């Protein structure tokens, strides 16, 4: 889907963003060896957002047709006019950046054959069932998705973007004293299935790794509740960057009273901490969710949020940028054709340091090494939490017993002040989804951190 919208240019008389979008997803699932799910979902449509006399109107319509385009522009204009008439407000003009044009490479029309995908998953399931018969529960789920967007704005910006992601999730459950103990791992990320997954056998060592940890978790103990020194593995640090800092730096939340609003230019973290919301390229590589042009037509820029411990900036759309008197950063993103762009993160990461992970663990007398996380949430006060599904006690520099599922929390600006070591090793989590009225794919990255956080337990 790479629709040419240029023929509708003359219809964009007010400030208007016209967007055509197709979201595709494929889900195949095996539960206990049975192929429970094999489904596809395609949604496509057109939307327009109009800014008129200081008010916004939005409309969307399914399918891609000239009638649909005319409907959404007319309806969005009528909606903006209704609001402006009922509730008059100053008609500020929005910042207008340089005219931007960007085209991602179109995808291949050939998707993997369904029987190949089913056979691939079945082989993984067979491996788990055969090698680990003591598993009480097992599931393999493949979720391939693709977002295709075409944008035309009245400012003259035009863009075509495409984001394919392929995620393969393994779930294992064992019983301990009649109660289930569970562990999950997600493989894959940005790209087509065939580029990320060659043969099932390539995943077997990682399945073995997961099973080994599950067996240790089966004997796991409750963490001791309270403030603890922890080493967050790189797979977790990205969630900290996203939940704890990223959200508080979204300009709409800053305007709503986020604590970050009163800390601009001030130290909020250890000087070892630098944090950036990357647009599309970081550390010499393409990010998990590359955004070259956002859904308002702004060329996406990297946004340094924390530079050596000092809070440096916020994430903006055009309207918040006008309010703060800065340039828009390209953070306005929408998930479906029927969604309006909101201020969202793209690829939020704490930058790597110089420490070695094993030395960081060896230097910890009493604490926890936290390796995998589940869901998270943040607050405008910078208080954050996220679930921890895999972790170990650390005693006298050595890994000890596994811990049961728990949650960590803290005030981000306090936690980041306690960071005493940052690892050289850096990892992206590429399968992230963030929820804020709409879902949106995000990249989360980071090194290992040694810091103090509140851990839940008994």
């Amino acid at each position: 889907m790479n629709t040419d919208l240029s023929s509708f240019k003359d219809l964009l008389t007010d400030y208007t963003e016209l967007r055509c979008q197709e979201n595709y997803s494929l889900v195949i699932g095996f539960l206990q060896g049975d192929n429970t799910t094999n489904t596809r979902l395609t949604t496509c449509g057109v939307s327009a957002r109009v800014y008129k006399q200081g008010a916004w109107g939005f409309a969307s319509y399914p399918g891609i047709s000239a009638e649909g385009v005319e409907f959404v522009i007319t309806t969005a204009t009528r909606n903006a006019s209704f609001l402006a008439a009922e509730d008059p407000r100053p008609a500020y003009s929005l910042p207008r950046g340089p005219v931007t044009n960007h085209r991602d490479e179109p995808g291949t029309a050939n998707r993997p054959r369904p029987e190949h995908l089913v056979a691939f998953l079945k082989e993984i399931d067979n491996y788990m069932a055969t090698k680990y018969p003591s598993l009480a529960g097992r599931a393999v789920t493949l979720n391939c998705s693709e977002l295709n967007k075409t944008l035309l704005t009245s400012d003259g910006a035009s863009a075509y973007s495409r984001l394919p992601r392929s995620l393969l999730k393994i779930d294992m459950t064992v019983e301990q004293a009649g109660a289930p103990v569970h562990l999950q791992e997600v493989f894959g990320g940005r790209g087509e299935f065939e580029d990320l997954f060659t043969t099932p056998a390539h995943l077997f060592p990682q399945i073995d790794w997961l099973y080994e940890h599950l067996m240790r978790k089966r004997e796991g103990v409750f963490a001791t509740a309270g403030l603890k020194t922890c080493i967050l593995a790189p797979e977790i640090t990205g969630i900290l960057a996203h939940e704890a800092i990223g959200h508080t730096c979204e300009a709409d939340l800053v305007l709503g009273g986020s604590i970050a609003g009163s800390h601009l230019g001030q130290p909020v973290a250890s000087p070892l901490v630098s944090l950036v919301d990357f647009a599309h390229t970081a550390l010499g590589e393409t990010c998990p969710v590359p955004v070259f042009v956002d859904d308002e037509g702004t060329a996406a820029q990297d946004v340094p949020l924390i530079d050596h411990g000092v809070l440096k900036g916020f994430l903006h759309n055009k309207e918040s940028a006008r309010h703060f008197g800065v340039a828009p950063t390209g953070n306005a993103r929408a998930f479906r054709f029927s969604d309006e762009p909101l201020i969202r993160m793209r690829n939020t990461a704490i930058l790597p340091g110089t420490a070695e992970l094993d030395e960081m663990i060896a230097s910890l007398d009493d604490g926890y090494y936290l390796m995998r996380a589940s869901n998270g949430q943040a607050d405008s006060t910078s208080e954050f939490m996220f679930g921890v599904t895999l972790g170990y006690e650390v005693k006298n520099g050595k890994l000890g017993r596994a811990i049961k599922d728990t949650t960590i929390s803290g005030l981000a600006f306090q936690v980041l002040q306690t960071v005493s070591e940052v690892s050289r090793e850096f990892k992206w989590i590429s399968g992230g989804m963030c929820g804020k009225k709409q879902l949106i794919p995000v990249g989360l990255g980071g090194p290992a951190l040694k810091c103090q956080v509140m851990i839940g337990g008994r």
Partner: protein
Amino acid sequence: MEMKELNTYALQALAEAGAEKAETVLSNSEKTEMNLENGELKLVRTTVDHHWRLTALRGQQRGSMSINQVTAEALSPAVTEVMAIAAASAPDPAHDIAGYQRPKVFRKGETNPNLELMFQRLKTFTQEVSTRFPRIVLLSAQLDFTRSTTHFQNSNGVDFTVEQGAYNFSVMFSAKEGASSSSFNYSGFSVLNLEEELLNGGSLRILLDQADQGLAPRKAPGKFEGAVIIAPDCLEGFLHSLLGITISDGPLITGASLFKDKLNQPGASPLLTVVSQPLGPEIAHGYFITDDGYEAQNTTIIQDGILKTFLLSLYGANKTGLPRGVNDGGAFVVTPGQQSLAEIIKGVKKGILLTRFSGGTPSLNGDFSGIAKNSFYVADGAIQYPLNETMIAGNLISLFQEITAVSREQVNFGFALLPWIASQGVTIAAQ
């Protein structure tokens, strides 16, 4: 072709393509939404969408596909693809479609939004909040009217049409005074019409009042095991989590459910009765048919602590040999108790009033932990102060087994009708 005709045509097309059993579900919806951001009405939004789900079964193989283009031209490749998906699937005798039921049309709610009234209600809401709760910042709010029509048909003769319209309101807010800012909180509700002002809906007055008091929070006093009074806004999430890990398809199929042998056995405190009432008179935002094509019925899930049903889909029932649930769950109505909330608080020696829980997904064994947000420390029978930086941990199953009281007050969210419940044995720890 009209929508219904197209859906019938799709069913025929699947049969002609070789489906032994087939199911087609076609919905069209239109949402009109007003958005408020940081206290200001910012956006009016109109979204039209379709959803067309085609399912085919052949030789115990199942394929499914959803599209949102509703034309005869879009149907042909979709039918070809859904048959290819089915052919590629591994066979499973548990796949099936709903059996014949008498054709029926269900109708609920208004057909069109009253745009002027929506605007007026939102405007009045912002003015009232500003007057009554001057320290409250309305971070965002959405008031929408959503109208949908769904045609559900299958090759066994199932033929249902559902026409529904409802207003939905959600709001996120915090309190701010000088440099102090409370945690944000949020709530919402659904109603069939806008006769009432928005501030009177759901738990909004209570939560806004609590947020107003939450500007000088303190930590709980150390670490202790205490009582927890779960507020209605929080209770729905706990119920979904409990039932999700115990009586739904996944844990019953894998055998991981700790309730797998508990049907008609005690599973919770005798003080707890939970009914799922998608057709209940108090439930504005219910449903008429299940996802697998049965006419939904109200059902008692827990009666005086006894587990009365599992919530298995048709597939889950076929897989486990256990009875199918008569609805898809949700629309919870928890029977009120005898005590007032004030009396329940009076009986707490040391614990918390939990208004919002920000926590990790509970484990399959019920263990949970997270932050007590927008919550209050309760001691010696009285609310002492608002909390911050306080974590709680416990076990969901124990939590519902150890209930000590259920309030006689309930909050109607339009999608659930819930009281406050008190329990014990939760670890509460301050940083």
